[in-house]
């Protein structure tokens, strides 16, 4: 038998039906759902008289719309409330487990899946959200889908997919000191471009990837979609098994041992080939900051805002000019001279416990710059509780940061957390598109330590020099 990549193994193990010229029917092991991309799917089921096939493989929560103010305060946005209520109504009598706004298990879908032990190596995971790629960090094939596909999965527990191509992104050598997972993925996107992964599933390999914790690996896989990829994945190893062990919905005892034996068979075999290979020297990576209006418009903290004239292709030059106008930046400005108004620590990219610890480490005993409003939004109620048990909330509030309740929050500005027009934000989220965090808002994507350091200084600084 020819050697297989990890992706091919998971694909083959889940192929229910394959016919030449048709998309394959792939079985779905875990379907995460939330309030924004499901109302029309449930409506479709109702209109067709169809039922949810496997409520036991479906997990629901609310995250996109929920306000991050205290839980004792109601949802005041009427249309948001209507959408939140619609999910609750749609779930009635389905048997789907639902973590509502007040549940200790509530949180961003991509934080709670792994954290509660639902996400496990070898699984196929889908959700009506592009950042489902996050779960690939555990050695899953995890992908974002549209609402029609959500309806398809609810009705059939399968997804129709043309088999994607494979791409290896190999990081050679160890990570330099002061460089974290967010910098790695921003560096990768800077190199491959935001369409570099179209039609491909990326497997991240190499020493620098292996050295990362699970939280770091999730940050990497999370932003696979920003490189245009269908999914991202990392082979499971002892770090993965130790992470899964003991989680609420993970296998226990002998079942866990048996599962690990299976999971050990997942990694890509020697001799298996990918359709595409990209190699990156880890030694070349530095802390990164985006300067433009897509995640590929990124540069090192020691660099300057590029001059659009330096781009060779006309449409890149025009895009850079447009981006600098939107961002209110002059070409050749040193990145470290860019002053900020807001800091957002959160989003499915960087709202896990290690992200909060890394940020707290930087700000301990210091105070946010008087011109900066900084907010911390933990990824889940459990992450929030864990951080509070460690006293991280006190470090943040003592430094003048606002400590909020879990949700997607200002990553996409569907809830009341938004930038005002012209405000400039150092954000640990994943997208810096025009208006993403609020109409006219200006987003710079950075790692949690870089965001924390910028909050203290009032402008971007190189965390390696602190």
């Amino acid at each position, binding site marked *: 038998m020819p050697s297989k990549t990890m992706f091919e193994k998971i694909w083959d193990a889940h192929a229910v039906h394959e016919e030449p010229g048709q998309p394959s029917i792939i079985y779905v092991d875990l379907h995460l759902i939330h309030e924004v991309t499901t109302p029309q799917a449930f409506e479709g089921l109702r209109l067709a008289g169809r039922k949810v096939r496997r409520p036991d493989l479906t997990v629901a929560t609310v995250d996109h719309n929920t306000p991050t103010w205290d839980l004792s305060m109601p949802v005041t946005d009427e249309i948001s409330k209507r959408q939140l209520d619609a999910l609750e109504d749609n779930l009635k009598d389905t048997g789907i487990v639902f973590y509502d706004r007040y549940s200790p298990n509530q949180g961003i879908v991509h934080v709670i899946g792994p954290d509660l032990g639902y996400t496990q190596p070898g699984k196929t995971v889908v959700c009506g959200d592009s950042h489902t790629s996050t779960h690939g960090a555990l050695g899953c094939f995890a992908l974002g889908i549209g609402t*029609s596909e959500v309806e398809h999965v609810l009705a059939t527990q399968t997804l129709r997919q043309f088999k994607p191509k494979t791409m290896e992104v190999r990081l050679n050598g160890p990570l330099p000191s002061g460089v974290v997972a967010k910098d790695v993925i921003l560096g990768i996107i800077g190199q491959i471009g935001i369409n570099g992964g*179209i039609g491909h599933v990326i497997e991240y390999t190499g020493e620098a990837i292996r050295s990362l914790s699970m939280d770091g690996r999730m940050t990497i896989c999370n932003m696979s979609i920003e490189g245009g990829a269908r999914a991202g994945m990392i082979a499971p190893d002892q770090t993965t098994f130790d992470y899964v062990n003991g989680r609420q919905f993970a296998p226990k005892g002998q079942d866990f041992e048996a599962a690990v034996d299976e999971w050990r068979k997942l990694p890509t075999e020697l001799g298996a080939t990918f359709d595409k290979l990209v190699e990156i020297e880890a030694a070349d990576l530095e802390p990164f900051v985006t300067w433009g209006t*897509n995640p590929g418009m990124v540069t090192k903290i020691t660099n300057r805002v590029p001059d659009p004239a330096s781009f060779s292709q006309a449409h890149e030059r025009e895009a850079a000019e447009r981006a600098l106008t939107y961002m209110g930046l002059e070409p050749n400005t040193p990145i470290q001279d860019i002053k900020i108004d807001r800091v957002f620590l959160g989003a499915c990219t960087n709202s896990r416990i290690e992200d909060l610890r890394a940020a707290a480490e930087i700000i301990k005993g210091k105070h946010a710059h008087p011109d900066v409003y900084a907010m911390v939004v933990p990824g889940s109620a459990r992450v929030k509780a864990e951080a509070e048990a460690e006293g991280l909330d006190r470090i943040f509030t003592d430094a003048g940061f606002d400590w909020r309740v879990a949700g997607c929050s200002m990553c996409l500005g569907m809830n009341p957390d938004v930038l005002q027009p012209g405000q400039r934000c150092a954000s640990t989220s994943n997208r810096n598109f025009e208006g993403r965090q609020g109409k006219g808002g200006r987003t710079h994507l950075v790692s949690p330590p870089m965001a924390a350091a910028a909050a203290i200084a009032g402008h971007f600084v190189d965390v390696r020099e602190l």
Partner: protein
Amino acid sequence: MEPFIKLSGVAAPINRVNIDTDQIIPAINLKRIERTGYGQFLFGSWRFKEDGSPDPDFVLNDPKYQNPSILVAGRNFGCGSSREHAPWALEDFGIRCIIAPSFADIFFSNCFQNGLLPVVLPEEQVQQLMEKLEKDPGTRLNVDLDAQRIWDEDEEVVLTFEVDPFRKECLLNGLDEIGLTMQQDDKIAAFENRH
């Protein structure tokens, strides 16, 4: 799903690359629980100025491109969020076909689920088409999915395109994918029994 067979209409050029779904429809407008009514929000930040008035510089506000049903755009159209509200907004606005050098995967798939045809053409052809539409605003294009052909009335533009045969069949007949998959129910059940 409404079948897509032939289309004839005004084509509007948006000469930008990497148009993301946050531009096609901002997150703030995703709170409805219906599939319809999103056209009013299409390209909201580009169509409307801060005071809410239409921005005359944006192509979809240009009377020369009235009631377009085809969009021509730069590469990687529809990148970013998986929101199906993006094709819903396009469709509700009257757009049934988008021509670009490449599309983001999820958006591409979402189009086919909603009777929209995304056409991939080589970068050079898209650029030439864009220039033609800017030179002769209001140009009407004909799209024939079965023949996989696009042309204008003077036949100054005549293009052929590739489309996956399965997706083509689904679009031509307005097929419901769930219904198709349910025909394989015995195989799904057998898979579940093995696991």
